[in-house]
């Protein structure tokens, strides 16, 4: 019933926009603007409603996003700082199953989601923030970016967890699915209502901020450059038509090549942009200290800008939220396609997104603007000078927004303004392609899947792309901006409600990381092959030569080990545990064991001997020990996987491995020997390692395995 009503309401809004928009003549345009402004003004006012605190207006939606991000950060125990290295390992593919090659990788999901967010916000938005809020805004922007990482983590984990997987193998995911399914799972009411609300805002946002706004701004840039070539009035309909046709070809015509080219060029442009910024910053290296002192001073003290330090905070938060879209829910749609058994892993990957978008790219833009001295300050008081209107800091050439960024970059490299235009157009285009997909997912959620239904949406999308560049309507752009931020209202409510689910998954995953099975890469001579991305990893239960992956099973200790037989007892078992509960306890013991085994192998004895590496009773978890152990054993990297491996299976595997390796059945005595030694030493780990090493070195000369698995399986 609600769905039907929502459809009707939605159709009405769409018709209002579509039906009145073609009136493109100038007079009509203004009339339309007024009419549209009346029709949607209330909505924009609600979304961007501002509280006045001490003369500063704070839009409540910005507070909503930042407070949400702060709560997520605290609730997940600063997950964005704890799991960064793990996130990078995931993106690099260290945890990817090689048998899944050809599926969507973590890297691809991240890159696609990034191309949807990196865009005008990073170029124009930052210039606005710094232009109004001064250098101090940069500080708050970074803070908001760091907090936003927790929001992204939450929404993307849920996006993957509750996505729909269809029989033909395609997936649909996003906030509307976790709202419906997640709420049902927790027995909460209102999931469906939130889902519909989100979907409606998402569709409107995809036509507006993700589409019209993009083509509008791209056209503004193009017109600007054309102006510098002497073409004074570059008509908007040309840009609009161009965008509409290309978007049509890509999303309806199925012309993949254009999209693929864009997807390849956009990351390149991003790198070029950041690279140029770094060069400019380095060229003015003597200003770096000043710039940072300005940033910190501006963040906390009065520097002459509108609203002082609070003004800087508002601007910084606002632009960060606009740029990285953390909490809006759009990224959850893009991330949900990844192939993973663990939804949390995609959450970890996604938390890099606000970092790259806001903390890296936005900060670069801000630094360039500050360092190149675009902002005019009073030499006597040191305070910034306001422009005539009194609403922003006066700039050297009076520019603001994209022009300010352009001016800052061009002051060092005059050609950069043209590059910036290309970048803006490409960023706009890739953002449009991404949003066309987000909107489509919301559309199919509301109206169901189907060729005709999808075509209708896509045609409307192309039409709005045309419209965006053609008309200069403040009210339409305001509305489209508002629609994107309206998505954050149902989304963050849903995130609050589903937090415990994410935390349960997260804790379960992190717990498993350390305690059950460890996977290591052994590299005495050279790095494992990494070119082309696929890291070679033999299947479990196989022992191979050096420089390949070996799966290690760190057993849960159920038997009390016999102390007398192992001089490393204290290292291996720092305290009487019956199992290794977490990574923290497991790691020192594990490292000690590696050292110990290594030493035994080097002196060529069966019997474990005291190892010279061990120095008294020093704690083993210190970095220098870790480093030494790594050097001594050749194990250059230790990472963790989570699959469980029962003991008996490991025994079977050992047997099978030997059989395969030596092309003959393993002598039962060997197995007996193994078992006996295990009893003697008290740990199968040590016994297996010794046994396998001895076996391979004597029986199969080509396999010069210096460092072999302690246990397999």
């Amino acid at each position: 019933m609600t769905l039907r009503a929502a459809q009707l309401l939605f159709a009405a809004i769409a018709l209002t926009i579509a039906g009145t928009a073609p009136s493109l003549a100038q007079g009509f345009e203004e009339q339309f603007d007024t009419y549209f402004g009346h029709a949607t003004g209330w909505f924009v006012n609600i979304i961007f409603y501002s509280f006045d605190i001490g003369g500063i207006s704070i839009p409540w939606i910005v507070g909503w996003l930042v407070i949400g991000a702060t709560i997520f950060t605290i609730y997940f125990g600063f997950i964005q700082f704890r799991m960064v290295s793990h996130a990078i390992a995931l993106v690099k593919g260290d945890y990817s199953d090689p048998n899944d090659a050809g599926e969507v990788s973590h890297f691809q999901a991240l890159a696609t989601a990034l191309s949807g967010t990196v865009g005008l916000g990073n170029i124009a938005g930052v210039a606005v923030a710094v232009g109004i809020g001064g250098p101090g805004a940069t500080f708050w922007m970074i803070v908001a970016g760091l907090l936003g990482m927790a929001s992204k983590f939450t929404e993307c984990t849920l996006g993957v967890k509750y996505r729909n997987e269809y029989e033909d193998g395609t997936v649909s995911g996003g906030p509307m699915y976790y709202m419906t399914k997640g709420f049902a799972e927790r027995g909460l009411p209102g999931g469906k209502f939130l889902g519909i609300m989100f979907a409606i805002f998402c569709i409107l946002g995809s036509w507006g901020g993700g589409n019209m706004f993009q083509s509008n701004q791209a056209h503004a840039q193009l017109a600007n450059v054309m102006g510098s070539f002497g073409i004074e009035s570059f008509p908007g309909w040309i840009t609009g038509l161009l965008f509409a046709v290309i978007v049509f070809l890509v999303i309806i015509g199925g012309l993949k090549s254009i999209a693929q080219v864009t997807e390849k060029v956009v990351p390149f442009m991003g790198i070029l942009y950041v690279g140029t910024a770094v060069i400019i910053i380095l060229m003015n290296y003597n200003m770096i200290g000043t710039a940072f002192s300005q940033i910190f001073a501006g963040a906390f003290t009065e520097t002459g800008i509108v609203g002082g330090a609070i003004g800087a905070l508002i601007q910084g938060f606002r632009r960060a939220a606009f740029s990285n879209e953390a909490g809006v829910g759009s990224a959850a749609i893009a991330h949900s396609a990844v192939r993973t058994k663990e939804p949390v892993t995609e959450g970890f990957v996604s938390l890099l997104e606000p970092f790259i978008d806001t903390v890296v790219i936005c900060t670069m833009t801000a630094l360039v603007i500050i360092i190149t001295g675009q902002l005019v300050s009073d030499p006597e008081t040191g305070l910034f000078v306001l422009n005539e209107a009194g609403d922003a800091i006066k700039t050297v050439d009076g520019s603001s927004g994209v022009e300010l960024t352009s001016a800052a970059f061009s002051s060092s490299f005059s050609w950069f303004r043209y590059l910036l235009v290309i970048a803006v157009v490409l960023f706009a285009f890739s953002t449009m392609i991404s949003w066309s997909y987000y909107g489509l997912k919301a559309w199919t959620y509301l109206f169901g899947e189907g060729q005709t239904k999808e075509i209708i949406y896509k045609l409307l999308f192309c039409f709005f792309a045309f419209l965006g560049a053609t008309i200069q309507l403040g009210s339409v752009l305001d509305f489209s901006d508002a629609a994107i931020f309206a998505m954050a209202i149902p989304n963050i409510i849903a995130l609050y409600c589903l937090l415990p689910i994410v935390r349960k998954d997260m804790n379960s995953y992190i717990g498993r990381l350390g305690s059950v099975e460890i996977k290591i890469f052994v590299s005495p001579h050279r790095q494992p092959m990494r070119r082309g991305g696929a890291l070679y990893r033999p299947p479990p239960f196989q022992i191979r030569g050096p420089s390949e992956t070996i799966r290690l099973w760190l057993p849960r200790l159920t038997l009390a080990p016999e102390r007398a037989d192992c001089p490393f007892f204290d290292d291996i078992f720092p305290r009487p545990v019956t199992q290794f509960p977490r990574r923290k306890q497991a790691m020192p013991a594990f490292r000690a064991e590696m050292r110990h085994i290594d030493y035994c192998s080097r002196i060529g004895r069966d019997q474990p001997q005291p190892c010279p590496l061990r120095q008294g009773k020093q704690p083993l978890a210190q970095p220098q020990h870790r480093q030494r152990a790594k050097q001594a054993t050749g194990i250059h990297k230790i990472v963790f996987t989570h699959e469980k491996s029962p003991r008996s299976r490991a025994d079977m595997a050992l047997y099978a491995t030997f059989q395969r390796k030596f092309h003959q059945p393993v002598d039962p005595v060997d197995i007996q020997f193994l078992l006996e030694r295990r009893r003697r030493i008290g740990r199968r780990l040590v016994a297996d390692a010794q046994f396998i090493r001895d076996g391979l070195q004597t029986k199969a000369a080509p396999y010069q395995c210096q460092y072999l698995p302690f246990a397999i399986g």
Partner: protein
Amino acid sequence: MSRKIIVGFDGSPASQRALDFAITRAKAQGDGIVIAHILEWSPYSFLTPEELAERHKRRKNELERAEKAILAPMVARVEEQGVPVTTALKYGHIAETLVQIAKTEDAAMIMIGRMGHSGLSSRIFGSVAGTLAQVAPVPVTIVP
């Protein structure tokens, strides 16, 4: 003792010749053949959101198509000659994946056809044969 020959096969005339050559060798030496078809793939490529969503489906289709159209007829052909044959169908960087297959299968040698790119393009992009010659753990035969 029966050994295994990996044949990198992509359906091209050159790879057909490589397979023919491998069959004669295998017959003469009593070896087995592993026909390896690699679908070029990098987990670091960039895709649109729509491609992401369809990736799993497309992968399934691609694997099915390769199995049916490329590998099945060749398996029949090799079996006709009385040579034991298995297949390997993988995604990845072609040369590196061939090396991996050679390792997992404990192969004696790798045979590939030559694509015949010379000069500039192979200098810029590198060739499968060239890379294999550099990194393969077993002897590589390149059939012209």
